[in-house]
């Protein structure tokens, strides 16, 4: 059994003979569901895992809606050398969030429909089939919220929500995190701000302060103090 197979069987074992899977085989092929469930293996309580698997089994958006989301997401964040919304799995993420945050559902479904109604009236076709130049004309109308407005029209709110979900879906993905340049989430030895960065910002460490700080060379030695609480190891 390879690693993936053994993990899968562990997972199924822990779910009580795949009970959660049984409930959804009618709508989605079981191997697809298993693939989705296998993908997520971080620590959750049994209840949380059951809830997630239930959501992963359901499909909220129609296929046409998913195509429209994909189209819109590509306009918000077109692919470049760093990565695409497909690399970042933005559409499945939005599909999941719509099930996880029910108040997104009507806003997104309604917004997608509104885009089609608008394009049908103006361009005699739905959004996806509208040429990109005209799609951008529509976006130009809804992508720039008036900073002084007390309330925003529904279409502007819809676009802001989609922009937020696309941007966060991208920048919380593997490619997005790489593009952002986040360097952490890995064991390391923090030893202060690099000197060139301090110089760039015109800042320096106060020697008196530094004297209270960790010595990376002795931090593996067991701490000992004198009676006054001074560290002596």
């Amino acid at each position, binding site marked *: 059994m390879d690693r993936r197979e053994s993990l899968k069987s562990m997972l199924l074992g822990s779910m009580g003979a795949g009970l959660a899977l049984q409930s959804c085989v009618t709508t989605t092929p079981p191997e697809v569901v298993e693939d989705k469930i296998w993908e997520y293996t*971080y620590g959750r309580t049994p209840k949380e895992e059951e809830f997630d698997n239930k959501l992963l089994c359901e499909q909220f958006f129609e296929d046409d809606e998913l195509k429209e989301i994909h189209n819109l997401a590509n306009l918000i964040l077109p692919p470049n050398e760093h990565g695409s919304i497909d690399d970042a799995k933005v559409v499945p993420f939005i599909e*999941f969030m719509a099930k996880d*945050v029910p108040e997104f559902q009507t806003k997104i479904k309604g917004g997608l429909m509104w885009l089609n109604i608008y394009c049908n009236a103006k361009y005699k076709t739905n959004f996806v089939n509208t040429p990109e130049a005209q799609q951008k004309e529509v976006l130009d109308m809804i992508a720039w919220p008036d900073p002084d407005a007390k309330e925003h029209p529904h279409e502007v709110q819809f676009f802001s929500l989609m922009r937020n979900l696309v941007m966060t879906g*991208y920048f*919380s993905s*593997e490619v997005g995190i790489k593009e952002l340049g*986040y360097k952490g989430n890995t064991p*390391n030895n923090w030893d202060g701000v*690099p000197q060139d960065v301090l110089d760039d910002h015109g800042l320096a460490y106060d020697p008196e302060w530094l004297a209270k700080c960790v010595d990376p060379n002795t931090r593996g030695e067991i701490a000992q103090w004198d009676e006054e609480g001074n560290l002596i190891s």
Partner: protein
Amino acid sequence: MQIIESQKTYDVIIVGSGAGGGMATKVLADAGLKVAVIEAGPFFDPADPKTRTQLKWPYESPRRGAGTQRDFGEFDMAYGGWNIEGEPYNQIGDTKFDWFRSIMLGGRTNHWGRISLRFGPKDFKGKDRDGLGDNWPIGYEDVKPYYDKVDKLIGVFGSNEKRENDPDGFFLPAPKPRLHELYYIKGAKKSNVDVIPSRLSILTKRINNDRGVCFYCNQCNRSCSVYADFSSGSCLIFPAQKNGGQVDLYVNSMVSEVTIDENGKATGVKYINKEDRQQYALKARVVVLAASACSSARILLNSKSSTFPNGLGNSSGLIGKYLHDSTGTDRMFFIPEMMNRKRYNEDGVGGLHVYSPWWLDNKKLDFPRGYHIEVWGGMGMPGYGTGFNPNSLNKYLGLKVGGYGNGLREDVKKFYGSVMGVSGRGESIAMKDNYCEIDPTTVDEWGIPVLRFNYHWTDHERKQAKHMHETFEEIGHNMGAVVLGNKPTKEQDYGLLNPGRIIHEVGTTRMGSDPKTSVVNEYERLHDVENVFVVDAGPFVSQADKNPTWTILALAWRTSEYIIEELKKQNL
């Protein structure tokens, strides 16, 4: 359904496994006593790969870490939250008290901020300072030896600063400040606000061979798999077991009441096993409650009998009264000089590397007691929310907000790590009118009557919050930052967060020498019942502008030693 009685009798039953329960377990088991720990939630070990979230990436989750399942994000290690299905609580009138529970072995210690501050000499004698509230029956000198022992056993980094009301201790070395913290230091010094290294129970240096050393992933809220931060399970309960202690863990077991005999002495507890939904009874010579201030009050109030018709230990009528939380309000800064930052790993420890302890004299102020300032920010791990409103800060640069296309990528990268925040956390005055009590109209899914809350802030706290924002604005200005948002108005209570929100709720079984005006004595023993103790934050007379955990631990150790002595003398 019959109550299933265990034949086994323990020396001590400890209800709850957070900071207080963990410390009692360690001290009592190390002394050779037979201990039962009864925990309402499941077993949890931060080292177990099955439940671990530490070092996971947001894209390993379908919701990228969003807080829909767990209130502080799905990787946060607290099973519970502000509202728990099947275990409700209610409000009286227009009260908005928020109650955070973490129902698991170790309780809230698995995710907490690790800010570990001793109370100072003035903190035990608040009434002497301003006539408000009450003094503790004990002083700093009574607790100091225990703070010292807690420092050495558990480990806390910090620095000895010889400050009157922020006592020195046995500290591990502090981590060097991050870039935004250096900006904060600059702004605070210019504003005459003191700044010192923070004091967090995280091992920046080895403390023994059973626990690892911090590897700077910034994720203490996910509970450390190498035990480099303080969680009650990994640092107290497991070591007690490893040391040969006779510790039986009863998990998923919800205590409903303390049982008593005809003489009014406690005989043990009754609990519901959440797995089989049966009721059980367990016997012990001593009962130690450590279920959290409100949960312990609830258990006592639900322990009604003909001897104690108002609840166990409640002849004063004060159980649940004097509930108080820290004050809190926050603000965010945008630092234009920190745009387009060079990238490097600045995760650091899970929390602030610097903080401002209370620095002023109340004689010159229009509110009592103080607050400290916590600092947060940096180039943190992205997750759900990163990239929201990708260029809203453009308005401070005279640029347009909104749009679409690849320019948004550049916006997100430009602003990454240029926003930081400050949080004021202060002392409120304990008030008899702020309380929790049993709500006779509601039970939880275990059939146990729940709590309802009555809590209102006064002008003392509102004025303190106002002062916090004035200070934030001055510091922000002096560090060259744009202070975001407007200063909260009087109508908004100056931004004061709902009571309960800081998760420092204390005071429900308060300590005193007079049984008429307090619930427990100076050894945290019920005045009314000689073999029942409370070692969570219930006994706090006042909560200081310090986080309560280090004092919970010190007092629980002191109480545990007292229990050992009394058992030796056959007094219990």
